[in-house]
């Protein structure tokens, strides 16, 4: 088991104005791992995808609660979980396929594909009527600098 060196809990209503805030908050939390611009960009993109999914898909007709939990684990690993209590996903493997979307043509169906390829690991659990949790980890390369 990896040791948790730091953590943060963030709870926000599912308003689209919070997309920008939430990815910036996670980026600020990750800053002490001294990520590169590219690593930071990857993390912000993945968080933006997961939070947007809560706003658009989990709570389509209401404002619900989104919980974001971040940890820094020993070995320079950023651990993020993003949880909603929304509608849930019936067929997960179908939902995670590239280009698959139940959204309008404002969506591209690339959210899960981007989370998967930009992060070191991605795990999604979901239950219809109960909600969805997206759990992602990203190893930050240790550049050997003093902090």
């Amino acid at each position, binding site marked *: 088991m990896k040791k948790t060196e730091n953590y943060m809990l963030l709870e926000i209503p599912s308003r*689209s*104005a919070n*997309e*920008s805030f939430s*990815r910036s908050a996670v980026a600020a939390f990750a800053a002490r791992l001294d990520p590169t*611009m*590219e690593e930071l*960009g*990857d993390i*912000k*993109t993945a968080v*933006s*995808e997961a939070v*947007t999914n809560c*706003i*658009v898909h989990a709570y389509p007709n209401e404002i619900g609660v989104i919980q974001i939990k971040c940890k820094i684990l020993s070995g320079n690993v950023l651990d993020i979980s993003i949880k909603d209590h929304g509608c849930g996903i019936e067929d997960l493997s179908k939902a995670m396929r590239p280009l698959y979307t139940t959204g309008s*043509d*404002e*969506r*591209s169906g*690339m*959210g899960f*594909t*981007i989370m998967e*390829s*930009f992060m070191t690991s991605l795990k999604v659990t979901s239950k219809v009527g109960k909600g969805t949790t997206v759990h992602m980890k990203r190893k930050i390369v240790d550049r050997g600098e003093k902090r």
Partner: protein
Amino acid sequence: MTSFVQGRRLTIALTGEIDHHRAAEVMQTIGQKIAEYLPKVCVLDFRDVTFMDSSGIAVVIRAHRRMHELDGTVLLRNIPPQPWKVLHAAGVERIAEVERSVPV
């Protein structure tokens, strides 16, 4: 968002963070300008885009559809590294020409 027209070429400068919160507004602006100028080429300039997620892919797809209806094309230019990674992951080169000249 500013834009200019040279002959049948419409250039639109995208700005700021393109996410779901802003995508509808960006799509609408692009759609209006295309309808107004009926260009042959629609250039989307990404120089001042500071962040983009998959919502931006839908923006480019929408522009491509509009231009396709007019027998025209979309050209993406000056794409910074972060938006490029997202666009490339979606294989955007298949629906738009890409000119990448921004220093990393």
